[in-house]
């Protein structure tokens, strides 16, 4: 196997070189390729100091960049996968690998025309191949570029295990989910603080006989109302989505902004739910206010932004575990609604990415077996994890 021959030699050299780089403090000059051309050819350096997703390119493929701690708390209060959050807590830093699907998406976002209707991108791939992390990388890019990010961390959570289901006040046949909606509004508030005072409402919203939000008041007031008045939070979510959809279409003068709608597990919007009404009949997704409003966001009848979605079989209901392609997971209805979209396949780690991951773990003192320097534990990990990012 070529792997056996390649790895030991390159790895020993790599480890020696990486130690040299870190030890002599010239790790900070990694971008200055011209200065150390020989080192660049031989070493597979696993970290890059280019922390801005807009400046990353194919040169940085397979390398880890650090997410600044402030960004971690503001942009991703709820977005990162659970295992990754544990890793961030253990290593005391959040490092994301620059991978090809994310770079491709970011290049599409850079090149898109935002006066046309919103383009829809769909990340799909096998389980554990890195779709959510690619989505988070793209969200980081959108945030650093000053976009408004609407991140729904897992749409599957909205169609199952609902503790409180209220009949909607706005529309008699629909159902509200107050807890999920208020949680989401709280996290939305943390992510998009700076936009809350800038965006003004275009319409008057009446919640009850005595309460209403006037036209021209800032979005922050609406969101606060939704967080405090839990009963009407689902309708507040709908109102927020509508306002943002209308206002994102403006040109980029002082008031304009770009809207990024990021949904993880978009296949739940068209599947089935496990929520039951009081007479034990199942609730269809259309009958849930949150899902109904989200579907309106995904339609490409608004301009000035993009919709980035991820398919997910892991949390999905009533779908076979071997399904990962868009047609299988979205179903007829979902595919027709999402059509036309740009599919972005996400694959497992390549050898180079695996090596980079291995070096990162060595650096962070995660690989503790005494033979970590030698050949066999690495091939063990290689074989047993099947190059799947989730198991690495």
């Amino acid at each position: 196997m070529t792997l056996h021959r390649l790895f030991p030699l390159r790895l020993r050299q790599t480890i020696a070189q990486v130690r040299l780089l870190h030890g002599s403090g010239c790790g900070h000059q990694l971008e200055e390729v011209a200065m150390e051309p020989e080192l660049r050819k031989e070493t597979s350096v696993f970290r890059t100091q280019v922390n801005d997703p807009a400046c990353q390119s194919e040169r940085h493929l397979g390398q880890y960049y650090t997410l600044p701690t402030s960004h971690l708390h503001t942009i991703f209060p709820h977005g990162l996968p659970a295992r990754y959050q544990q890793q961030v807590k253990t290593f005391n830093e959040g490092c994301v690998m620059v991978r090809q699907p994310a770079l491709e998406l970011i290049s599409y976002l850079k090149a898109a025309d935002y006066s046309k209707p919103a383009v829809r991108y769909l990340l799909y791939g096998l389980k554990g191949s890195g779709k959510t992390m690619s989505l988070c990388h793209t969200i980081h890019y959108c945030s650093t570029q000053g976009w408004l990010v609407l991140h729904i961390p897992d749409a599957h959570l909205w169609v199952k295990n609902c503790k409180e289901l209220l009949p909607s006040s706005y529309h008699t046949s629909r159902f509200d989910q107050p807890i999920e909606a208020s949680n989401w509004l709280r996290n939305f508030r943390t992510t998009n603080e700076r936009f809350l005072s800038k965006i003004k409402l275009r319409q008057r919203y009446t919640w009850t006989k005595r309460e209403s939000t006037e036209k021209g008041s800032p979005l922050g007031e609406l969101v606060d109302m939704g967080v405090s008045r839990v009963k009407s939070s689902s309708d507040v979510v709908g109102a927020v989505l509508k306002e943002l959809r209308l206002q994102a279409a403006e040109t980029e003068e002082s008031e304009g902004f770009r809207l990024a709608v990021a949904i993880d597990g978009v296949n739940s919007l068209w599947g089935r739910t496990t929520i039951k009404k009081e007479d034990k009949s199942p609730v269809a997704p259309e009958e849930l206010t949150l899902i109904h409003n989200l579907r309106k966001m995904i339609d490409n009848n608004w301009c000035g932004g993009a919709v980035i979605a991820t398919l997910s079989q892991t949390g999905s209901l009533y779908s076979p575990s071997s399904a990962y392609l868009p047609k299988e997971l979205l179903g007829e209805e979902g595919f027709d609604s999402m059509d036309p979209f740009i599919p972005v396949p996400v694959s497992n780690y390549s050898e180079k990415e695996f090596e980079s991951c291995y070096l990162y773990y060595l650096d962070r003192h995660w690989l503790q077996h005494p033979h970590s320097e030698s050949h066999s534990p690495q091939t063990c990990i290689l074989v047993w994890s099947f190059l799947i990012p989730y198991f690495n």
Partner: protein
Amino acid sequence: MAAPITGLLKPWTPRLFLVRWSRYNPYYLEPEPRKELYNMPETELTTEQKEERELKAVRPIKATTNSTTSSVFNDPVLSKFVNMMMRDGEKILARGILTQTLESLKRKQVEKYHKAPQGKKAEIECNPYAIFHQALENCMPVIGLASIQKGGKFYQVPVPLTDNRRRFLAMKWMITECRDNKNRRTLMYEKLSQELLAAYSKEGNVIKRKHELHKMAESNRAYAHYRWW
């Protein structure tokens, strides 16, 4: 034990259900799963190892258990611990708990390592296997008590323990402690990792139990001469 009855050694025939029976003729030798010993060249072997090799060429060898592997991650102490934690034959569950324990140990130590100032980093042990072995060693009692009958009464007599017995006692105490004194909501691996870390730094209930045994033995020193072996 009867002397090896080599004359009655029957030729091996396969059975319907292949089982590693625990009663072998003493003629059979133990299997050796470690790869390094087979890769050693002739010159590096001592006389005993050379004799062993020659013996292996002629004598039959017992079958290994399902849990022995020749990989670098195989550890007889850990296998023993897993077997002791196992209930109702659910080895997969027991091994899963142990893996989670080791992972949580590593996570806690690596977190501490990254938060520590530069000078203190070298003192923090991150290898979960090293912590496990050291914790177990810290829990092993040096001396034990045996119940000996003399003149109609039973006395608790201090007695030396074999290595196997000491290891067994340490593991048994660790497991019973984690099972009994655990909050209903904490999971086994969480409690185990806390106890192991405490034992590593010589604190915690298991170490206390070891010290109590030592104190009992010390207080019963007078009866030490009741032991006849």
